[in-house]
């Protein structure tokens, strides 16, 4: 990997720390190890990320970082099922991308040959389906993400469409399956394999990305190549990509047929399984976050600038509203900054905080198709797609 500089430094430091932590943890007495594990939950990384799971490494971004339009690579949330693959499988001299299945000509690409396709850059939100899982009631099993398993980055790569057309998609093709180089510790665990419908795969904005925010894709974010399906949840954005298979049907296996699905009808059961029909998680629902002030922050009475971001899958944000009275009355915030499909939209609101005391600031967004962010998201067994109103509590202090 040529990813030198601060990104690679971040990865090395992080991995060194994670590996050291793991080794030390196992060397400890079990009780001490669990105590250490409990201390890590939810431990706060000194500056950049909040660690949710130390191995495989899962961590979210503190929302204060979302005051910037692009989320820096070393602040970007990290999630995978098995952790990064070994260097042998993704090193520049070994890595290849295989394209096969229902195509006229199977293809094998090196990074150099892949880069002969036209490069494209798209700014898009990437969000874990489980972002906000911690707010579902009853609690759903899985990583207890709060607000920061999301970020907005500039992705550079080639169009998946160009790669598929070079191979010649056959008439019977309906889905495109992705597999990465990451592997479970125990071989009996199913591989993380996903597919997307052909229509999304052939969309000119769906990318195979090798750069993130103008830098080579960092190891934790899928080096050397990952899928980017703008507007869709991140489990379709397979990291460490090595295999693409064009198929007549959806990918089989746990991560496509059981996990990352939601009931077609909402339900309120705590059984761990559902009898209703389910569909794969795809488009991100409309959502907004307050990045400033921070939850629990003290502010001076007077004009308080509230800032945040809002995004809406495959459409744009029409409106963001603020309420200081738990949603009884709403005031419209001002949309600012870049307005790009798939990216998030920044917004701000000047709140005249005249009364001292403790206040909850609540925000909700509306997209161009009229979908409004709900007070709470309907429950589903895996705790996916949380997009309830965002909320921070602040204390207003009198002026000196």
């Amino acid at each position: 990997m040529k990813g030198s500089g601060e990104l690679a430094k971040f990865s090395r430091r992080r991995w060194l720390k994670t590996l050291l932590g793991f080794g030390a943890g196992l060397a400890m007495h079990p009780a001490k190890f669990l105590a250490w594990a409990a201390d890590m939950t939810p431990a706060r990384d000194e500056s950049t990320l909040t660690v949710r799971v130390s191995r495989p490494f899962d961590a979210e971004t503190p929302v204060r970082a979302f005051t910037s339009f692009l989320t820096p690579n070393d602040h970007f949330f990290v999630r995978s099922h098995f952790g990064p693959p070994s260097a042998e499988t993704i090193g520049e001299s070994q890595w290849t991308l295989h394209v096969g299945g229902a195509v006229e000509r199977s293809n094998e690409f090196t990074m150099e040959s892949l880069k002969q396709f036209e490069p494209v850059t798209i700014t898009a939100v990437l969000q874990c389906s489980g972002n906000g899982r911690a707010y579902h009631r009853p609690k759903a099993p899985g990583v207890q993400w709060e607000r920061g398993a999301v970020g907005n980055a500039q992705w550079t790569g080639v169009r998946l469409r160009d790669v598929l057309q070079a191979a010649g998609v056959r008439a019977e093709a309906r889905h495109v399956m992705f597999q990465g180089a990451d592997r479970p510790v125990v071989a009996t665990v199913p591989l993380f394999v996903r597919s997307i419908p052909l229509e999304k795969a052939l969309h000119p904005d769906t990318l195979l990305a090798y750069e993130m925010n103008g830098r080579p894709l960092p190891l934790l974010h899928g080096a050397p190549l990952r899928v980017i399906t703008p507007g869709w949840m991140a489990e379709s954005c397979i990291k460490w990509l090595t295999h693409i298979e064009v198929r007549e049907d959806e990918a089989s296996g746990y991560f496509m047929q059981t996990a990352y699905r939601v009931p077609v009808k909402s339900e309120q059961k705590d059984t761990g399984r559902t009898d209703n029909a389910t569909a794969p998680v795809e488009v991100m629902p409309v959502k907004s976050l307050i990045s400033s002030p921070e939850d629990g922050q003290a502010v001076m009475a007077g004009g308080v600038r509230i800032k945040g971001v809002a995004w809406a899958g495959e459409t744009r944000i029409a409106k963001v509203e603020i309420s200081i009275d738990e949603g009884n009355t709403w005031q419209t915030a001002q949309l600012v900054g870049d307005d790009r499909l798939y990216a998030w939209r920044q917004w701000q609101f000047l709140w005249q905080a005249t009364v001292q005391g403790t206040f909850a600031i609540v925000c909700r967004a509306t997209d161009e198709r009229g979908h409004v962010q709900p007070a709470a998201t309907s429950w589903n067994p895996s705790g996916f797609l949380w997009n309830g109103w965002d909320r921070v509590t602040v204390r207003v202090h009198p002026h000196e």
Partner: protein
Amino acid sequence: MNRSRVIVVQIGLLVFSAVMAFSQEDPESVSAMLGPRGEGLIIARCAVCHSADLITQQRLSRTRWEATIEKMKHWGAEISDQEADLLIRYLSARYHPNAPANVPPLSHEIGKSEPLKQEPQAQRPVIGVAARGAGVFEHNCQACHGGGAMGGMGPRLAKNPILKLDVLFRETVLYGRGPMPAWSSVLSEQDIADVHEWLLTR
């Protein structure tokens, strides 16, 4: 209703409520009672693939803990039925939906994890059985030390010099060393001797 009948009914109610109180497992005492063994099992059976913090952040009903353990067994976690039962009781007593956000670390309450109750210690050394050791290795050691003990995340054990040092081998398994966890709450003296014997044939 005459007085004796009332008394019979009252006694019945008393017995009934006593039985109910006895059968209702108090989560805190269950988690304290099962903690030492439960922690050892989490390290040995679960932390092979993921750190324990993934477990301790959950707040699930017993039904969902059962479903989770079942899923993990299906994926290859080496959990016996008896161990699964203990883990489910422990996890649903400690990490239930109404448990506080920050459950205090167990070590503060119990000090140390409890070794597996060993068979009465014979005066003579335990004799290992290689044929049985192969199975014990496969279920407990293979995930890290690789198929055929040829190495993996952990070192290759086939022809490893440590096999000649019986005491060091036994103590490493029982108490752990470096990144290797302690197996004292999972493996018996007989299990360890059997694995040792089998490894000598590799």
